[in-house]
């Protein structure tokens, strides 16, 4: 979706302000939100792309004015409500008043913690040969899916060069909507700064994205 989360190339957000000796969490509740998102994801309530999509669909003014973990909280609530794991009555009461729904992987317990500290595996067996190889010139398609996608707006319609082939991976655009993993070839595609930002831009810049094959067309 063409949401405000897709910020690459936008102006006006000001300077980057690193915080010296930044703590891992600024408030205790942030750590609880992180833990709930990780636990409910691991229990099978949702996948990582669905959780991203629910944060992206927050209203733009909410997205921009909420802290990072506040966005995680709002996205988590919306996702659990939509999938029927919690109800509006539960939320209104602040306690469970409706029956529970069964989770794909069962209750998340202490024994599961070690497992989630290693990233999940997203590589899959290739369903078809790769269309592109390193060195190929490709154009990022001018597409505007209304749902979750990992093709940022700033490269759409632009021509780049395939640099690496990462094998086949779960396709976020479908898995985010529970429409299946549909594994796709994934490539690092490099764009010249001039191609993205015009002839007046810094000539020393190159930017790459990792692009799934359906995002690309041969040039």
């Amino acid at each position, binding site marked *: 979706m063409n949401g405000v*989360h*897709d*910020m*690459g*190339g*936008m*102006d006006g*957000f000001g300077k*980057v*302000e*690193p*915080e010296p000796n*930044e703590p*891992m969490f*600024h408030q205790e*509740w942030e*750590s*609880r939100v992180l*833990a*709930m998102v990780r*636990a*409910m994801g691991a*229990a099978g*309530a949702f996948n990582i792309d669905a959780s991203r999509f629910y944060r992206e669909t927050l209203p733009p003014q909410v997205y921009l*004015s*909420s802290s990072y973990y*506040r966005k995680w909280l709002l996205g988590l*609530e919306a996702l659990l409500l939509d999938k029927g*794991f*919690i109800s509006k009555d539960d939320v209104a009461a*602040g*306690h*469970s008043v409706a029956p*529970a729904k069964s*989770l794909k992987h069962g209750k*998340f*317990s*202490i024994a*599961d*913690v070690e497992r989630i500290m*290693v*990233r999940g595996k*997203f590589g899959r067996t290739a369903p078809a040969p790769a269309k592109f190889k390193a060195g190929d010139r490709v154009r990022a398609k001018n597409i505007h899916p209304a749902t979750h996608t*990992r093709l*940022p707006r*700033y490269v759409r319609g632009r021509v780049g060069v395939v640099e*690496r082939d*990462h094998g086949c*991976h779960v396709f*976020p655009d479908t898995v985010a909507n529970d429409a299946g993993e549909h594994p796709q070839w994934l490539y*690092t595609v490099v764009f010249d700064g001039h191609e*993205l930002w015009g002839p007046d831009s*810094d000539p*020393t*810049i*190159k*930017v*790459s994205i*990792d692009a*799934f094959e359906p995002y690309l067309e041969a040039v």
Partner: protein
Amino acid sequence: MSEHDHHHHDHDHSELSETELRVRALESILTEKGYVEAAALDAIVQAYETKIGPHNGARVVAKAWSDPAFKKALLEDASKAVGTLGHVSRVGDHLVAIENTPGRHNMVVCTLCSCYPWEMLGLPPVWYKGSPYRSRAVKDPRGVLADFGVSLPKETEIRVWDSTAETRFLVLPMRPAGTEGWSEDQLADLVTRDSMIGTGFPKTPGAPS
């Protein structure tokens, strides 16, 4: 709390209270429904606080600076190479190490959300997840580097890696001069988190930290 934090309205007391209540309510709902053990949530937080962090990435960088065979393996398949180091936390698939050279500086961003190599660097700092960095890193990386007090020769190529998939990027910074004969432990102390994101350099030997 720094002066900087007061500019964020999310630290405003009234919103914080509302957020805190909401978080507690959600936690009650999830535990009462039997979806999660409350103690497991504590254990997750504890694991993040103790097991992951830039010390993991620093070990990897120091090893690559010291051992050419490891460096070669790291650049070919970082997940596999890191997996051979027993003292570094286990790492998931699709970690990619990218090498800085005198002619090319690498910098990592996630313009769409906050993708970051957690196992190597810990949880990302607020600035990495914030709008200024995410919006500008791909269009004006030199301007962003200036915000960090970093400047590069004007002819140096700057390569920005936008983490748009499940690949994760670790910058392998250049080994500082004056560290010949140093042990991996000594070298690891020079490796900063930002040098592995590409928004900083390793510490200089002898300089105050």
